[in-house]
């Protein structure tokens, strides 16, 4: 059917497809690179934006999200950077309003102790238990264990060439 289309129509279709793809390309490029007058400021903005959680879509930073609130918060950060505020001041400004939850990296303090060190505690606990069990077992006599190999005679097929990777 394609080959029966008039040549003009076919080239038109290609132009339309090309335009569509080009449009899609610029649309996604716009998301990644905002219209910026000052690239230095934008770089600093992005550095802070990846640290801040968007509270509407909670698993995204305000750098990733295009929710209204994320856009507003980015504008707020941009404005504060223009006023010469430091990163610390901007982060403090956000936590004063939205709480620690706004931080993608939670601060180390009393209430987040378990969050930060819990995994290490679990790992240490696991290693300790493993060590204790192995040490206890190493002191046992050999006849306390079941034999590794079944005591029945080997099966005929196992007597032949062992398959690669076979135990």
């Amino acid at each position, binding site marked *: 059917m394609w080959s029966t289309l008039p040549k003009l129509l076919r080239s038109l279709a290609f132009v339309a497809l090309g335009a569509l793809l080009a449009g899609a390309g610029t649309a996604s490029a716009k998301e990644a690179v905002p219209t910026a007058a000052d690239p230095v400021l934008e770089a600093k903005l992005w550095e802070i934006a990846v640290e801040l959680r968007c*509270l*509407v879509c*909670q698993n995204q930073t305000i750098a990733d999200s295009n929710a*209204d*609130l994320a856009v*507003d*918060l980015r504008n*707020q950060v941009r404005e504060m950077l223009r006023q010469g505020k430091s990163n610390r001041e901007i982060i403090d400004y956000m*936590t*004063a*309003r*939205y*709480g*620690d*939850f706004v931080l993608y990296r939670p601060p180390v303090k009393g209430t987040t102790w378990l969050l930060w060190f819990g995994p290490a505690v679990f790992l240490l606990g696991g290693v300790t238990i493993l060590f204790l069990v192995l040490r206890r077992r190493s002191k046992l006599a050999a006849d306390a264990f079941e034999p590794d190999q079944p005591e029945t005679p080997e099966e005929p097929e196992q007597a032949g060439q062992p398959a690669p990777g076979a135990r």
Partner: protein
Amino acid sequence: MKRWQFIVPLVLFVVLLGFLGVGLNLNPREVPSPLIGKPAPAFKLARLDDPAQQIGREDLLGKVWILNVWASWCVACREEHPILVDYAKRTGSVPIYGLNYKDQRDDALRWLARFGDPYKASIIDRDGKVGIDYGVYGVPETFVIDKQGQIRFKQIGPVTPEVLRDKIEPLLKKLQTENVVNPA
């Protein structure tokens, strides 16, 4: 020794179950506000009904008031709105001020005409700046502010009849009996 091998994992398992159970019942969308017990952020915004007039935080010092963040584009606000209208009609002892958040004035006025106006006044937060100061992230949100101008309660999402009856109204009663010490 044998008995401990049984009891220790069981206790750990029950503790884990407890954590998971609590976790399941938490709503991750309700982020506790750090503003509770802090002075309400200052603002000075135009009234929705008469933009020539402004209302600021200091105008409301000395009385208990409710700040309700709403918008005509906010679907959950419709769910909440009749409860506020009913509250305002029923008692009206505590004024509700509306913060019209990132809305168009015409839309907002039409919305109030259609669904009723429980507000003593609404103020216009066109660009959401005051919203950021109040840590607003999910409209509707409702704040209770005491005579000292401190935020005492925050509801994220619609006020339900239960929240109004069990949390907000008892708190309002208590706050109204408090004396102004030193309004800040």
